[in-house]
């Protein structure tokens, strides 16, 4: 399994009037070929900014800092702006949440599909057009050739998201970054778009970096998961492990919040996490989750918590021992 994207010690800071907002703090992850890594967390946890930082697409005032940021052996911290532009939409493709705002309403589908390919590859218009038709058919759009002349507003939300996926595939990328790819869609369409992403990823042997707040999607699609809270990774590991045996109190709490037909009882209280996510401005000593945590101790306020590795592929950011965490989980379900 070859490593495509390797991120270590990524920080994103945004200077604001109230102080410096530490939006992403010491985030590390690896995306391998043919693998899906999910960054999951609630709004404001820094998952989208982490992805934008990798692409060097941060808002103007945000500052990026990292120990190590490699894509296919290339150091992204050192490449020129021009070289980075050669990668975007070419080797690294991105699919955004809202297909209506990320497609240009003034240009036809065909025009927008071909643009990236004409920019990155030495191909004729005819070749780019053939590729566009091929990919539209691949993502399940009927009458593909005639769609090229249509404008985004003539398509439904599900079709637009399919067009976005086709657009990402035009140059045969090594990795796709999908930021909330189905949040704007109906549940029935969501399942289809996710199946499509999964099958295309397998077929073209790509890496997929999936960013979502929806644990259901993560469970069904991801191989590995990074749970994020307040700019930090609080737990990481194989999807099966994270969902089967969550260790961090936040992950446990989050899973307890979700109603599951047939498992949670109708009309009974769902689990909940009291309070709100703090804003990471100023001095951030101690555990970011402590104010909402049921297992607060003195150490949580006094010291920073390090991401503790308990096996090769599993880590969590809490002072409690794995055994205590497991017992806490049992306590929750009874």
């Amino acid at each position, binding site marked *: 399994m070859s490593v495509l994207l390797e991120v270590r010690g990524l920080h994103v800071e945004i200077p604001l009037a109230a102080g410096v907002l530490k939006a992403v703090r010491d985030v590390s992850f690896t995306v391998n070929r043919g693998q899906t890594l999910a960054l999951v967390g*609630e*709004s404001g946890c820094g998952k989208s900014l982490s992805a934008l930082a990798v692409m060097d697409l941060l808002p103007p005032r945000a500052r990026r800092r990292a120990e190590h940021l490699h894509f296919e052996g290339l150091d992204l911290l050192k490449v020129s702006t021009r070289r980075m532009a050669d990668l975007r939409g070419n080797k690294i493709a991105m699919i955004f949440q809202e297909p209506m705002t990320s497609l240009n309403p003034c240009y036809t589908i065909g025009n927008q599909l071909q643009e990236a390919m004409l920019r990155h590859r030495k191909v004729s218009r005819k070749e780019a057009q053939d590729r566009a038709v091929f990919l539209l058919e691949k993502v*399940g*759009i009927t009458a593909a050739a005639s769609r090229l002349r249509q404008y985004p507003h003539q398509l*439904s939300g*599900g*079709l637009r998201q*399919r067009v976005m996926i086709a657009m990402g595939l035009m140059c045969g990328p090594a990795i796709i970054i999908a930021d909330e790819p189905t949040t704007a869609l*109906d*549940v*029935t*369409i*969501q*399942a*289809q778009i*996710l*199946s499509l992403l*999964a099958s295309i990823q397998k077929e073209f042997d790509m890496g997929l970096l999936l960013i979502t*707040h*929806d*644990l*259901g*999607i*993560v*469970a*069904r*699609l991801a191989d590995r998961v990074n749970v994020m809270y307040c700019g930090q990774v609080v737990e990481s590991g194989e*999807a*099966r492990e994270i*969902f*089967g045996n969550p260790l961090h109190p936040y992950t446990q*709490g*989050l*899973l*307890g*919040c*979700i*109603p*599951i*037909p*047939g*498992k*949670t009882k*109708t*009309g009974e*209280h*769902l*689990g*909940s*996490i*009291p309070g*709100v996510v703090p804003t990471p401005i100023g001095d951030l000593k101690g555990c970011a989750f402590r104010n909402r945590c049921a297992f607060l101790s003195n150490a949580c306020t006094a010291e920073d918590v390090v991401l503790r590795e308990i096996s090769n592929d599993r880590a969590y950011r809490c002072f409690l021992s794995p055994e205590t965490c497991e017992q806490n989980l049992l306590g929750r379900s009874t």
Partner: protein
Amino acid sequence: MSEPILEIRNLTKTYMVDMGLLKGKRPLRALNGVSLSLEKGQVLGLVGESGCGKSTIAKLILRLEEMTGGGILFDGKDVSAINRTELARRIQPVFQDPYASLNPRKSVISIISLPLRVHKVGDPGSWKGRVEEIMEIVGLVPRLKNSFPNQLSGGQRQRVAVARALIMRPEIVICDEPTSALDVSVQSQILNLLMDLRKDFGLTYLLISHNLAVVEHMASRVAVMYLGRIVEEAETRSIFRNPRHPYTRALLDSVLTPEPGLGLPETHLGIVYPNPIDPPPGCTFHPRCAYAQGRCRFEAPVLTPLYSSKVACHFPL
């Protein structure tokens, strides 16, 4: 079975849609003969894809729009005969987006007390006390009362919306996607709050949602809508155990629960939601239905009782 508090009879709503310059207008039938009844203390879940007409029903009940045909009876009386102020006192909405449904230029206390001022309840001196009381009930700390919506988190805003809906002690609350804009940890807080309030105040909810897991958790009965019609209605338990309509089945299959290893569901639904201006003939679901047969293409099924459910399908599962 107790008396229904709200009864919807054969409700239709047609919008005239402008087809473009010189092309005239065409009718869009958003609701096509919907009948529903809501019993006191019940939670009725209304589910379906976007554009199926669920929010139109909410608007018609609240009389934010006028119905084209049919009727709505509230406590046995036609809503169009009830004074609008009185109706607003007894039926209140909570909308999806707390960012859009609260006036950004008014403080929390002013937003929550607006119904008291409109209905001129009691003397102005008692209003502050009532606002503080309801804020405590919905879990808002009193110091927030002079804050503005942009200073609140999404969950707090939705609590303000709930407080505003409840301050007049309505009988029915229409929750239109009350948690869709919220994070999961906040969603569960709001759902728990809504369930407690229902018990404490004896409220009746019409819960509109596209999230079936939420509906299953909250509702006692569920009605599934497709293209302006109800295709299946049953007790929550039976609809989740034995969906009779292929569309209900597909919706249930599409729910992604956080259980790894189950993989992604195959819904066989086809990729295109039909255009409501040109609905397909016969059963409107047939182009997306895996079980469709010849009869489905020209004969529209009617909602008929089947075991404990009501289903509109020629070949129920």
